[in-house]
Every structure is written in structure tokens, then in C-alpha cells.
């Protein structure tokens, strides 16, 4: 299945990315190959595939959850120390003039 530039633009919008025309051209060609690679998942394998049990649940144990208690958190000034131009509020460029 060949992927179109329109589909790439739609995906880019979902992913909050933008591409120049030149990038879009290159990306569409590369993405076509990547999707063809992802499609190889449909090859048959000996013995078929197992019944899905519970996706994700295997990775997480619910036997040892921490109790729902309020504990001290990091100080606000430390957490916000990486914010560019923070002065009690998030300061961005004016977008409505």
C-alpha cells in the first residue's frame, strides 16, 4: 500500500509536527518503506499466534500498590526552574494582536 503525502500531512498534524515540501517528499518515500516493513508482521509463523491474554497487564503487578497518601512533593520553584521566562506565570509571545 503506497502512502500518500496527504496521509503523511494528516499524521504529522496528529503528531504535532510539520515538514517543509522537500522534507515531505523525502519522508513520504521513507515512510512507504517503513510501513512495508511494519506489514511484515502479517507473515505466517509456525504454530500461529497465541490467544491474547491481557495486553499490558503482564508488565505491571497490582499486588504491591503504594497506599494513596499525600507525601511531600518537590518545591514549585525547583520544578519550574527550567521554564524559560517564568515569573509566577508561563510567559509566551503574544499571539493575538
Amino acid at each position, binding site marked *: 500500500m503506497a502512502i500518500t503525502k496527504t496521509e503523511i500531512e494528516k499524521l504529522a498534524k496528529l503528531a504535532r509536527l*510539520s515538514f517543509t515540501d522537500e522534507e515531505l517528499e523525502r519522508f513520504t518515500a521513507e515512510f512507504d518503506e517503513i510501513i512495508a516493513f511494519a506489514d511484515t508482521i502479517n507473515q505466517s509463523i509456525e504454530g500461529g499466534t497465541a490467544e491474547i491474554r491481557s495486553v499490558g497487564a503482564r508488565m505491571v503487578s497490582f499486588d504491591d500498590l503504594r497506599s494513596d497518601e499525600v507525601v511531600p512533593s518537590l518545591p514549585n520553584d525547583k520544578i519550574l526552574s527550567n521554564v524559560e521566562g517564568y515569573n509566577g506565570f508561563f510567559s509566551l509571545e503574544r499571539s493575538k494582536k
Partner: protein
Amino acid sequence: MRAEITELASKLRKREISAVELTKTYIDAIEKRNPTLNSYVHLTFDTALKAAEQADQMLKEGDAPLLCGIPMALKDNICTDGLLTTCCSKILDGFKPYYDATVWEKLKAQGAVLLGKTNMDEFAMGSTSETSCYGAPLNPINTAYVTGGSSGGSASAVCAGLAVYSLGSDTGGSIRQPASFCGVVGLKPTYGAVSRYGLIAYGSSLDQIGPLTLNVKDAAIVFDAIKGGDKRDQTSVYHDYGVSLAECLDRDVKGMHIGVAEEFFDGINPEIKSKIVEAINLFEKNGAVIENIRLPALKIALPVYYIIACAEASSNLGRYDGIRYGHRASSYTSIEDMIVKTRSEGFGDEVKRRIMLGTYVLSSGYYDAYYKKACLIREEINREFDAVFEKCDVLIAPTAPNTAFPLNYKGASPVEMYLSDICTVPINIAGIPAISIPCGKDSKGLPIGMQIIGKKFDEATVLQTAYFYEQNSGIKAGVYEGGTRA
């Protein structure tokens, strides 16, 4: 300087050398070699010297842990309170975390001395470390070749004697493959054995932190120090390993069942295959029973890995919007425009490709055909490994189908590069432990890595088997003999 942890720990305890003197030796080596090798991207010499002074005090007081005063390095995706952590991405330019990753918290408490943060593929996405926004690290064995990736700087630093040990992260082979390319040891522990708290996420159900070292014993020592459950990482496990794994490495392989799966050898460079076969023969000669086994689902492990990893990455990397940290676009017309411009300027091509693939496989109409199906096959791969470990103690396989690529190699498309992860990704999919150890060199003098794979939480057998091979094969980690940057 290249020295083992136990050797240095002994010298520190006998006061033959102080932690400050040892740290200065490594700083000198870094100042001399890092401009060529680019193993480190952020240097932390001031804090290292302060930590070394504290380590000397701990050593003076007696009863200091084994890693006290030992200079080391962390991959640039492991958070360090107040010290730059950028994932080698422009989007995290200038980011200083406000907390320590659990692994660093543990090592710091033991008196570790952090020399700096090591180079890597941007957001750990790559197999050569060339997607780093700081430029690629060079392979100390031959500086015309890549280190592998994504923990390329960590492997390069250890190989070149710029750190006694380093930590890397492994989502699809990112510790083992650079260890293989640089001729050092790299351990990917069982998923959940080491806390991921403070590791900047790529594929959360696959990521795992582990050590890169000059030998197997050092890998066991560092793993002993960082393992354990953590309430801040709900996927970590409080597994009781019993004793220190570093203290029980001696084990005879007589009667041990070693599995060899033909699927791991499909399309492998013949020189690599021949070295792995030599290693298998060594085990057999020493009484191990070689079992020829099948793992048919490995044939589709690569697309399964890329679908799951990219799906998780597209979600994990959604947080980079330029508001709370890192790079922010300088001009925009709305908040939405600022986020799009920030992300488009801040992420490199490979990261964008993976975010786009992840977005695609999770999008309406494709979720069942890709993501859900990949999760289904993941279960099958798990089942196959479980069945194999009913009769085998460990499996042996190559770490990579090839040795290091030349720098700036343009002969491979993104998909062809993905195919080079064939030997390592099945291990992450199954969440099992594996180590890469040096097992010789190819005709170009580039190191070859052998993978020893074990069952979940059986790092002990993996390390014992690797230690046996290391002691009996006489093959040691590669040595940096100088080189230039083209």
C-alpha cells in the same frame, strides 16, 4: 587508564591512591581523548572532585562500599539533579533535572564519582549513536567506525579508559550492540530488575538500565549495586537474588544445557558465525550440553519491536512542547503553532520517523492491524522463550549480525538499519536478561560480541556463563590505541 573495579577498590582501601587522585587521572584522560572520541557530551568535573573528596572521607571512616571513589559515567538520558541531561536532543537543550534517577541515587549513596554524561543516539533511537545532536562518538578500537548505539558514548568511554564503568539503557539492544562494537561487556537486566525512575522514557515496556564494563565481574558488581524494586517505578520488581551475584561467578559449565536457535544465525556475517561456533565448541568441550532449539516467532520480532517501541515513543515524546523545559521556537502565531514549531525544530529525523510510525500504528483504523497484533505476537514470543527455558539454562547467539559500520555510512536506508537489531530486540520483547561479551575480532580487527541470554531474573546464570567464557577463552575487552577524528 584501564583498571577493574576490584583492583581500584583494593588500592583505595589500602590508601595506595586517593579517590581525588584517581578522579584526576580520569579527568586528565578525558581532557586528552574526549576531543577526538566525543564519548562525553556533558562533563561534571567540579562535582566529581567534590564527590571524590567525600569518597575519601567515607574510605577513611572504613566500611565503604565497593564502588566508593570509583569514577564512572551515565548515559545522557539518566536524570541527575542539577546536572545537564539532554538525551542528546536539541529539544532538551539546557535541561537540568530537579531529581535523581533511582540508579544514580543508589550509586551516589555508595560514593560513586560521576565524571559526566555520555553521548547517545537522540532519545536512544538508533544503532550508531550518529543521531546525537552533538555529533557521533568514535569507536576507540578504530576511530573510522561507529560505536554502535544507542549507548555509544557509554561503550566508548569504558573502552578508552575514560570511565571505570558506565550505565546505559537498552530498549532494543542499546547496551549490548555498542558493547559488541567496542569490545566491552554490556548487561541488559531482566525488565523490572532495575528501577526506570528517572530514565527518560522511549519505549516504557522495553527500556531497561544496565552496566557497560571492561569485564564480567565488574558488570556483576554494578548490577548488584543498582538492582532492586522501587515504589516510584511500578514496573520494577522486588526480586530476592539472595547473595551478591559478583561473589558467586565461579561455576563449572559441565552438564549445563545451552540452547542454540538457528533463527539467530539467519543472515549473520560468516566471520561472526564462525566465532560464535568456536565459543559454543569451547562450552561443549568443557561438558556443556548443546541443545539445538527453534524460536519460529523470532522471524517477525523486528516489526513487532518497532511497532510497540514506536507506539510507546509517540506517546512518551508527546510531553515535549517547549513550555516547561528545553528548546522553544522563537516565533509563532499561536500556542498550537509554537508546539508544532518547537517539536519540528527540536527533534531530529530519526525521532520524527519513529513518532510518525507510532502515531500511524495507534491511529483509528490501524490500531488492530498493527499495535494489537504486535502485542499478540509479543505473547507468542514470550511463550516460545518460556518453553525453551524449560530445557535450557541459557541461550547463545551473536549480539549483532555485523561488526561496527564505518562512520557516515550512507549505504543503508532507515529500514535496513532497523534490520541490524535482529539479534537483540527479541530479548527486550520477552523482558529477559542478556549480556554481550567480546568473543574475538573480524578480519578488519573489529570486535565481535556474543550474547548469553537467560530466563527472567536469572542474571546469576547469565553472568556465570559469561564469566566462564571470559576466563577460559582468554579474550579480553578491546584496547584504545589512539586514533584521530577525520
